[in-house]
């Protein structure tokens, strides 16, 4: 597909809480914006979007309140940005919102109750928009060839462990790929000229929200993941999920203390790689937002 003949793509953007300014994945948002500029993607934020409730909200939330939270975002998207797919960059936002769409379309009772709740916020739903992850948009709407086209600085010589994790992979999956060994992140890395290493823990859980409540167990999960990335020969880890990124990056110090390891491997977002490969600066790629700095990428970005 050549850029000249492609209509500008427009989506209803659901950035999610963690990507806001000063929050834990603020660097994800900055790099996504840079990446989208190159790819001529227009992302319009859903006005006044709210938290999806995340997976961990289940204990207190209950089913209908959780559905209502997602339904409010969907109703706002439908009302303000009609006809556009909703695109989330966060794995949990995507999962929660897409799950809500499925449950509401599947059950008249849940839909009726949700509409009644939405009325309290002055909203209603007619047709629920499609709910997609940014990685899906890249792979399905663009494809690897089109994503390779704007590459100005190829990432040759860099070795990445593509860490897919859980929620961009299960339960919905991307581009019909297998749950046990999805390839999309590896193919994306290769489209940028870098090497995607083979390693064992590509779809292993980092502990998710339980890194807060059960840190010892989560750290043991993260240790397995990082160790396996090193064993595969990776220089860096790359992921599509904000919680995977934070957990796998931030606890390396604590794991070193506990297990006597010497982990110090940068953990990046795919959008940061793409921004650098597309000729963006370190600032455009928000590389300063990584606690373990990715020096190879920084020097390439210049």
């Amino acid at each position, binding site marked *: 597909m050549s850029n000249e003949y492609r209509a500008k793509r427009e989506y209803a953007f659901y950035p999610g*809480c*963690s990507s*806001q*300014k*000063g*929050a*834990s994945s*603020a*660097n994800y948002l900055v790099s996504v914006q840079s990446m989208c500029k190159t790819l001529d993607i227009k992302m319009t934020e859903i006005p*006044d*979007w*709210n*938290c999806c409730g*995340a*997976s*961990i*909200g*289940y*204990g*207190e*939330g*209950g*089913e*209908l*309140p959780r559905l*209502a*939270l997602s339904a*409010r975002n969907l109703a706002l998207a439908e009302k303000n940005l009609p006809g556009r797919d909703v695109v989330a960059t966060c794995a949990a936002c995507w999962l929660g919102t897409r799950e809500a769409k499925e449950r509401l379309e599947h059950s008249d*009772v849940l839909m009726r*109750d949700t509409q009644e*709740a*939405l009325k*309290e*916020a*002055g909203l209603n739903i007619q047709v629920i928009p499609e709910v997609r992850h940014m990685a899906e948009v890249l792979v399905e709407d663009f494809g690897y060839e089109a994503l390779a086209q704007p590459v100005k600085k190829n990432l040759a010589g860099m070795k990445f462990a593509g860490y897919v994790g*859980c*929620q961009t992979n*299960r*339960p919905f999956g991307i581009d019909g790929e297998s*749950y046990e060994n999805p390839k999309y992140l590896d193919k994306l890395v290769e489209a940028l000229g870098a090497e995607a290493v083979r390693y064992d823990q590509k779809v*292993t*859980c980092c*502990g*998710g*929200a*339980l890194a*807060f*409540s*059960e840190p010892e*167990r*989560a750290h*043991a*999960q993260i240790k*397995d993941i990082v160790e396996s990335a090193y064993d595969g020969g990776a220089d860096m880890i790359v992921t599509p999920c904000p919680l995977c990124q934070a957990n796998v990056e*931030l606890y390396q*110090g604590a794991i070193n203390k506990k297990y006597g390891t010497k982990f110090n491997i940068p953990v990046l977002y795919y959008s940061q790689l793409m921004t650098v490969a597309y000729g963006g600066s370190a600032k455009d790629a928000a590389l*300063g*937002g*990584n*606690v373990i700095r990715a020096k190879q990428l920084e020097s390439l970005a210049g």
Partner: protein
Amino acid sequence: MSDLNATMATRYKNNFLKEIEEQAEMGEWVKMCMQCGVCAGSCPPNFHSGWEHPPQELFMMIRAGKREEVLTTPSMFMCTSCYNCYVRCPRKLPITHIMHGIANYAHRLGTAPKNQPTRAFSKIFWDNAVTTGRVNEVKLTVGLYFKDSDGKFNLGAGIKKALEMKDIALGLVKAGRLNPFELFGGHKCKDQSGIHAMLKKARELEETRKAIKAA
């Protein structure tokens, strides 16, 4: 025993499976389990040590009417929402969601272990998110560290935990991914009153439907 727990125990006497089917989210799936154990083998391995009972065992216990054992175990709260069990179950049971449903039910009844850290975190997270419509990460972390598992303020525990986490916090501040001033405000939705009214209505509707089933 909480009032709700006593009511439900009496109402569903000798039929705990029916109670789970009618009162717990996704509970209607429990009877479909064929006890293969793929779910147990799919859980993140470092969380196995926290189990009293893996998922398929909980399902059999529900069918066997072991009400107290199921509703007081911390096992469901070991779920990391990784969805391995969900995609691998040969009977296509939404196991992740069933775990959440049973955990939520035990939490509502007040039978879930009081000192279960994930149960506590789930409540802190939800309350944090719905107060302004968006998660305030600073308040979330402070809320978690400075409260004991019963939700009471605990200064000593908070300071100890804050010191443990000091290096991580400083790294994040330096990287622009943690803003201490969020403690005094932070990101929020405009229509907070609409969100609050919507959630209040949603909870009422859900409680009414469950009460009708139990009637």
